[in-house]
């Protein structure tokens, strides 16, 4: 069974996404900031990481960078889920090694679930 790490600082969104993914049959672990994300990722070795960018302490971009240079996590699928919609942010995300970049205001919960399903099926 696939394991998803959900990195999101907003409590309600964390609650919603994990409820939904659990209902879809995935195993879900969460982190509320960048530091937690890194320690949890190394410990839990998820198949896919949903990564928020705007977080306290360290930004999602920095987390992504570190994840991609850490042996245990460099091959995980990583989808960025953020409010940042500018093309410059999108390129930054892709250049740092994200597998996909989703803008929160442009996708519904169902869309996200679909993307995750497709990516984990690959």
């Amino acid at each position: 069974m696939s394991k998803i790490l959900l990195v999101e600082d907003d409590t309600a969104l964390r609650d919603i996404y994990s409820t939904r993914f659990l209902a879809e049959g995935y195993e879900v672990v969460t982190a509320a900031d960048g530091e937690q994300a890194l320690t949890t990722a190394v410990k839990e070795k998820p198949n896919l990481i949903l990564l928020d960018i705007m977080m306290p302490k360290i930004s999602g971009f920095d987390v992504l960078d570190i994840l991609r240079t850490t042996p245990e996590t460099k091959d995980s699928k990583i989808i960025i889920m953020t409010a940042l919609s500018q093309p410059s942010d999108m390129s930054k995300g892709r250049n740092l090694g994200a597998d996909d970049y989703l803008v929160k205001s442009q996708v519904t919960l169902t869309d996200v679930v679909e993307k995750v399903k497709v990516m984990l099926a690959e």
Partner: protein
Amino acid sequence: MLLWLILGLSLVVIVTISIFFVIFKLSKKQKVDNRTLQEISQDNNVHQNQEKILLDAIADGVYIVDFERNLTLLNPAAEKMTGWNASEVTGIKCWSVMNLKDQKDNSVCQNNCPVLDCWKTGKYVTRDDTCFLHHKNKNNVQISSSYTPLKDNYGHNVGAVCIFRDETEKKEIQRQRDEFVSTASHELRTPITALEGYISIVGNDKICQTDEKAKEYLEKAHNTALGMSTLVKNLLTVTRIEDTKIQFNKTAFSLHDLVAQTVESLQMLADKKNLYLRLNETESQAYSGERAIGRSLNVFADKDRIQEVLYNLIENAIKYSDEGGVDISISYDHDFATVTVSDSGIGIPGDVQEHIFEKFYRADNTTTRETGGTGLGLFITRSIVEMSGGKIWLESQAGKGSKFYFTLPIRID
């Protein structure tokens, strides 16, 4: 003998009295003349004084140039707003003193001189509040201005009068307002996303058990949440447009393919109302020629933004039609592709057409509330088209449907 004496005396008296009378009359006349002259020169002073009082009192800056564009007058408000004393700059060319620039620091005086403009048209011209004039001692001052030609009796231009107003405060208020809208919109995004998320979870059978009625209402609630999400997104787009911070990622792409894609995504909406959606394409000779030798015809613009434009226009056409359908056609000439979105809907009356591309303008509050309009869609659409180097316009009559046209620059590979 006594008789002669009396006669003589009487004569003398009469003559003396007459002389005095004449002298009296003369002096009275002089007094009148004197007073008239005094009055006349007083009149002049009052006139000049009145003009001076007027110019001094006007809160807007006023300056006058002669036919060679040398400054001949600055009122006190103009002195204050430019930092110059009238005496310092009288006789100097207006452009070297005012040094008007636009938002991108290009010289308005050099490229688009309003004085030359008003002489050419013969009427007053204006420059809107994106103009900056050069203050002697500090930063440029944001102003709006008008220029009127001064003519002699033969109708020749002998000068121009310019009136300008400091818009700095107004702009600051606008900027604060836009910042507020932007902050508020950002703050709204997360709770709206959460709302949408929770609603979709409740309606999801894998997580909650709900009956058909509940599912029906939940779908409506979900759509409302999605509508709110769109509104917030539009508000943010508008503030970014105003701020000119919006980024365009221009590429060459096939307009036909993009339109076909958009039509496909709106097919369901059209089907629900039993309306047809038709895409036609006509080619100009030049285009056929290019295609014949294997070149593809693309437009050069930001693909995602143009998709927004197409989506907005076609969705509107569907929303405001109850029967018939929507025709979309693309035509090409040498420089531009023109897209026409034509509907068989309720049409748009003339007085509404004037305002329809304005921010927050809603033709008729009841109709647009029902169709979910926010008054921002066409404003954003026009901004995108114009910033892509195109134009947008419409033809319509109440009750006879509407045709929206927009153009985009072509890029031939």
